[in-house]
């Protein structure tokens, strides 16, 4: 297939060109269609949200459940994700003596949401996050034996799969969904809703035999959904036109961490039906991404793990320029400000003691695949990245003073996780540059995962949505590791409620 031709733009890594969504069939009335297939529950999208919805729908009595996935592979962004899962009041927190609560997690997220997050949804997710974590463990997911404290979280509450990837969850969930009896069909693209005379969603149009990027491939069939349709189609960060319509700075020069299927037409079809658009302009860039590899690669998880005990340095000044564990928006904005005299991007570097960096399995990968490097001295680093040496030396000495004092007067970083972790030789270094990563915006849902109608405020009958396709949950900036709990909990909620409706 002719795709993924890498373009190196201005040394800022690989970009994937978004494909314009196809012309959609208008919503049609069930009187005008003959149904080709029929299921109790129809789920669109095979990430965390779709898989957990399928499992719960089956466990709540659905006779037959189908997951339609337009790509050739199952799992969406969830299968390439970092495997970081935040939850309060977990067994590992009890073991490590971390004092956390549902309320603390909600408050951390409200702060990053900068006043516009949906408190009820955040509380619903935080309340049920530990149960969702348990479902993944029941399915066979395995986690590293330690917790991490990600940017914006006030305590360590983040689990990570032992393979450091969301596939450590999607693969077991996919198996479990199939074992429960759910049908999974790939190369099957959702192309519109079928309503009855009462404006209730009773089915969908599906293009079977679909090859991504070839919009007229395959054949459209009509699929009946006896209990309801659950939309779990993920975000739209790969749809450059749509994301630029919201935020013109996210042009084709900005890399993206998402799978190519994240183009948003499922969300757009719900808007056409009357769903409430929320926070579409809030598209998050990942401040831990590297310009030296495509997508999420290996560096992202490496940086996420190491930021608490590392310094990020502006190459032109040799100085820190941000709190390394501030929320994502704060950091991405600060990184984008790192420029040379001509205003061109000058990716900053993150310096970590090799002793600490090597505690995470990605360190080995980063060095092996030449997307991060090991140095014996600051001189070597200064020379390689063209950083003023004296300034850099002073900065490291100063920062090590903050480690000792447990306080960072320069940027106010929480130094708990940096305790005793001085920056000392040998060092490892990676380069940083933000990539478009996550769509906070989408359709509005309530705590029952029902999609709300923009005119009536009532829920649209027969229609549920879960995961990144929904909007407003996180407000301005989602905290890291808070999407998995959201997708899982809301998917489970949708799967249960579709059987009640």
């Amino acid at each position: 297939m002719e795709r993924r031709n890498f373009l190196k733009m201005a040394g800022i890594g690989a970009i994937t060109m978004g494909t314009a969504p196809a012309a959609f069939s208008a919503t049609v009335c069930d009187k005008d269609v003959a149904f080709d297939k029929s299921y109790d529950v129809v789920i669109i999208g095979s990430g965390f949200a779709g898989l957990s919805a399928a499992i719960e729908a089956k466990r709540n009595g659905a006779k037959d459940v189908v997951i339609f996935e337009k790509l050739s592979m199952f799992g969406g962004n969830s299968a390439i994700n970092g495997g970081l899962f935040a939850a309060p009041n977990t067994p590992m927190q009890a073991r490590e003596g971390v004092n956390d609560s549902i309320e603390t997690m909600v408050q951390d997220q409200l702060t990053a949401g900068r006043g516009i997050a949906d408190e009820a949804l955040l509380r619903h997710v935080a309340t049920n996050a530990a149960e969702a974590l348990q479902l993944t463990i029941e399915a066979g997911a395995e986690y590293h034996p330690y917790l991490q404290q990600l940017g914006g979280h006030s305590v360590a509450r983040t689990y990570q799969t032992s393979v450091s990837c969301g596939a450590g969850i999607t693969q077991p969930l996919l198996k479990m969904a199939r074992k429960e009896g759910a049908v999974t069909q790939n190369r099957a693209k959702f192309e519109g809703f079928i309503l009855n005379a009462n404006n209730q969603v009773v089915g969908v149009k599906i293009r079977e035999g679909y090859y991504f990027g070839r919009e007229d491939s395959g054949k459209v069939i009509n699929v009946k959904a006896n209990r309801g349709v659950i939309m779990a189609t993920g975000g739209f960060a790969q749809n450059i036109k749509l994301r630029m319509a919201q935020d013109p700075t996210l042009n084709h020069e900005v890399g993206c961490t998402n799978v190519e299927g994240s183009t948003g037409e499922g969300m757009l079809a719900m808007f056409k039906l009357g769903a409430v658009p929320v926070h579409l302009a809030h598209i998050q860039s990942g401040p831990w991404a590297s310009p030296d590899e495509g997508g999420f690669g290996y560096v992202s998880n490496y940086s996420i793990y190491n930021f608490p005990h590392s310094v990020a340095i502006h190459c032109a000044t040799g100085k820190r320029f941000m709190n390394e564990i501030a929320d994502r928006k704060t950091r991405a904005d600060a990184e984008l400000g790192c420029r040379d005299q001509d205003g061109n991007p000058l990716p900053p570097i993150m310096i970590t003691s090799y002793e600490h960096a090597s505690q995470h399995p990605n360190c080995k990968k980063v060095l092996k695949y030449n997307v991060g490097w090991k140095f014996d001295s600051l001189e070597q680093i200064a020379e390689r990245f063209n950083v003023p040496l004296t300034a850099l030396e002073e900065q490291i000495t100063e920062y090590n003073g903050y480690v000792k004092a447990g306080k960072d007067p320069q940027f106010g970083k929480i130094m708990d996780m940096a305790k005793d972790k001085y920056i000392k030789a040998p060092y490892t270094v990676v380069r940083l540059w933000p990539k478009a990563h996550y769509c906070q915006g989408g359709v509005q849902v309530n705590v029952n995962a029902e999609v709300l109608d923009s005119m009536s405020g009532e829920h649209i009958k027969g229609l549920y949505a879960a995961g990144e396709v929904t909007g407003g949950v996180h407000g301005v900036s989602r905290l890291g590791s808070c999407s998995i709990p959201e997708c899982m909990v809301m998917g489970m909620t949708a799967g249960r409620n579709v059987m009640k409706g």
Partner: protein
Amino acid sequence: MKLVKYFALAAIVLSASTGAYAKDIKPWHDGFKCKDCHDQGLKSFPSDQSCLQCHDVDDLADATKRGGDEEWQNPHNNLHYGKELPCIECHSEHQKPETYQPLCLDCHTFKYEKFKG
């Protein structure tokens, strides 16, 4: 190995029949006719099952097995999709190898030195 046997056999059987190709194919598939692979009509890609007429997923996974911390970098049994990734996500018969690359390289800088296309 089982795989090679399939190959050889298929090649002998097929080269006996006529073979006028509209497109170049890889030399190791010499003798194949369009329809041998294009099981969904000549204008469509071969189905995701097509290659499996001759190739066995478990054999392939075995042939490209990796050890230690590279265990999950086996393209035929990988971390993200296990053994389910359709062949055409990485392989192509009719395109020049310079014009496409294995799926992994979207995000990783792996080197698959034995990758032939």
